[in-house]
């Protein structure tokens, strides 16, 4: 359900418009209200009937438009449904956000998560080993906590260069499922790591 789906509906909409236009321009088409008026005097009853018909058509089209809009701007799926659709892009284009807004958002989401203790303990141990192995001299994992769909970790490096080098390893297991990072001060880094099959939620526009 991505841009291809939208494009399909778009093309369908234009095609429908063209068909309607063709019908409207057909020489054997019934005369419309404007033609009726030009053809001769018409009664108030005729005009009312025409207007009522137009009103009905408009109502139907409004309802159809509302239905299509609802399908285009779908609400975010729950985590369980997202797991099955990990290969799909987000349903609509999210606005760019600020780093502050993103961190506040993920901190809130993380605090509200329930604990999946067996996965969380194993993941925390795995991340600890990874940082020890790949963090470079002088690096430390100040804390790491996992809940059910993500882990939040705070790291410290010997210098800015070591931190930048570590950021290039964010695609390496166990940190290979995507996430959000934010530098803190000269040598600190906070990282929210997504669990496999649980991509981070889209940050709402400010």
């Amino acid at each position, binding site marked *: 359900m991505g841009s291809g789906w*939208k494009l399909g509906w778009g093309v369908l909409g234009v095609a429908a418009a063209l068909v309607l236009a063709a019908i*409207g321009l057909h020489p054997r088409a019934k005369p419309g*209200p404007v033609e009726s008026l030009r053809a001769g005097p018409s009664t108030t009853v005729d005009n009312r009937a025409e207007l009522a018909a137009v009103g009905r058509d*408009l109502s139907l089209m409004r309802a159809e*438009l509302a239905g299509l809009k609802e399908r285009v701007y779908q609400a975010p799926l729950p985590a369980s449904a997202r797991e099955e659709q990990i290969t*799909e892009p987000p349903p609509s284009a*999210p606005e760019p956000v600020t780093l502050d807004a993103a961190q506040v958002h993920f901190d809130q989401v993380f605090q509200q998560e329930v604990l999946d203790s067996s996965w969380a303990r194993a993941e925390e141990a795995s991340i600890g080993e990874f940082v020890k192995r790949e963090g470079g001299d002088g690096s430390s994992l100040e804390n790491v906590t996992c809940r059910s769909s993500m882990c939040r970790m705070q790291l410290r490096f010997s210098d800015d260069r070591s931190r930048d080098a570590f950021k290039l390893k964010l695609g390496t297991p166990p940190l290979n499922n995507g996430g959000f990072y934010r530098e803190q001060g000269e040598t600190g880094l906070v990282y929210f790591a997504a669990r496999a099959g649980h991509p*981070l939620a889209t940050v709402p526009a400010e």
Partner: protein
Amino acid sequence: MKMSRAISLGVGGLLGLLLISNAWAATTAGYGGTGCRQVFSASSGFADGVIARNQSSSSVTFVCGAAQLGGAISKWRVSVRDTTPVGQVTCFAQASSEFDTGGFVSPSASSGVTFTGNIALGAGLAGTTSSVANGSKNVTCTMPANGSYEGSGIASFSITEL
């Protein structure tokens, strides 16, 4: 009924345009040799024509930059060569802030340790869920040490933004 048809035409046309405008997505594409740069590696990768190559005896990381055109990264793809059966190419897409003080990272894709040959990574994989205002987009690939004279390489890459 002419008026109702005219209204139908107008509404249908507007609806079509509305949906087509929502289908807009921008793609930036580039070649490894011209669009990728080696970062933080003691050994040296280099640009061989349009290919970014690593013929050295240790791994090299390339960052392939794309223009910031829109929102989150919806798709990304990188065409790589992996010539060693004991190492692998690993890539991920990133939507970072202007000076890379923070950003969103996509799930990564790897060629597989035992794989040798040419392969496209990232196709069908999720991108980033959000992007940073005034930021940048890139694909980062870590290339293994050479397994043959040609070594590992990046032929081309593309990033699609919503």
